[in-house]
């Protein structure tokens, strides 16, 4: 059994249109590295220098990883990771 990862629509171009992919268990950083090895370019869209990008939210099952151990949160086989780009903007600039 592996970790199930939900890929958001804007990043499905990098996963050949797949909405769900699998990754090896480990920390969130390990999961992102494994995703990048399988789907080159995906990692940099999610994180930069080991940190999740500001406008990307990652959920482990039902919990935002910022309220767990952030990038070091442990992800086990059978867990579900959801990658969700933020929705933001505004007229300020």
């Amino acid at each position, binding site marked *: 059994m592996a970790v199930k990862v939900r890929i*958001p*629509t*804007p990043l499905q171009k990098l996963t050949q249109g797949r909405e769900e992919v699998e990754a090896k268990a480990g920390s969130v950083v390990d999961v992102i590295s494994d995703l990048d090895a399988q789907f080159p370019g995906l990692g940099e869209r999610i994180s930069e220098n080991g940190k999740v990008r500001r*406008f990307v*939210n990652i*959920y482990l099952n039902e919990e*935002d990883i910022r309220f767990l151990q952030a990038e070091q949160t442990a992800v086990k086989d059978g867990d579900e990771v*959801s990658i*969700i*780009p*933020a*929705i*933001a*903007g*505004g*007229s*300020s*600039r």
Partner: protein
Amino acid sequence: MKRLILPADIFYEMLEHCIGCLPDEGCGILAGNDSRISKIYKMTNTDSSPVSYMMDPSEQFRVMKDIRKNGLQLAAIFHSHPVSEPRPSQKDRELAFYDDAAYVIVGLSSGLPHVRAYMIKESGVSELPVEVI
């Protein structure tokens, strides 16, 4: 997407939400199948600002699941510009990660609300007609 089709009740609910959020920007998600909208999700703007919005991430997570459960698509994202024209700002363009969705902007700076919709892609911004049915 070539146009956005909005049932009148959803259209007016979107306007009411944006007006109710004044003086701050209001925001939300329109779900449907392709260009036809069938469900509105009114979201919390955690920036609480008249010139900026950020949808509450936990609400967004729940809404994404609900959209999937209902067999719908995230068809459009709306927000208001309380003090400026309904055109994508530089910030709107930089943060338009959902390039398959339409971005609807409700302009509230002059009397009646003005609603415009755009596709915002790396290659450029194009306006879409909005049909209220």
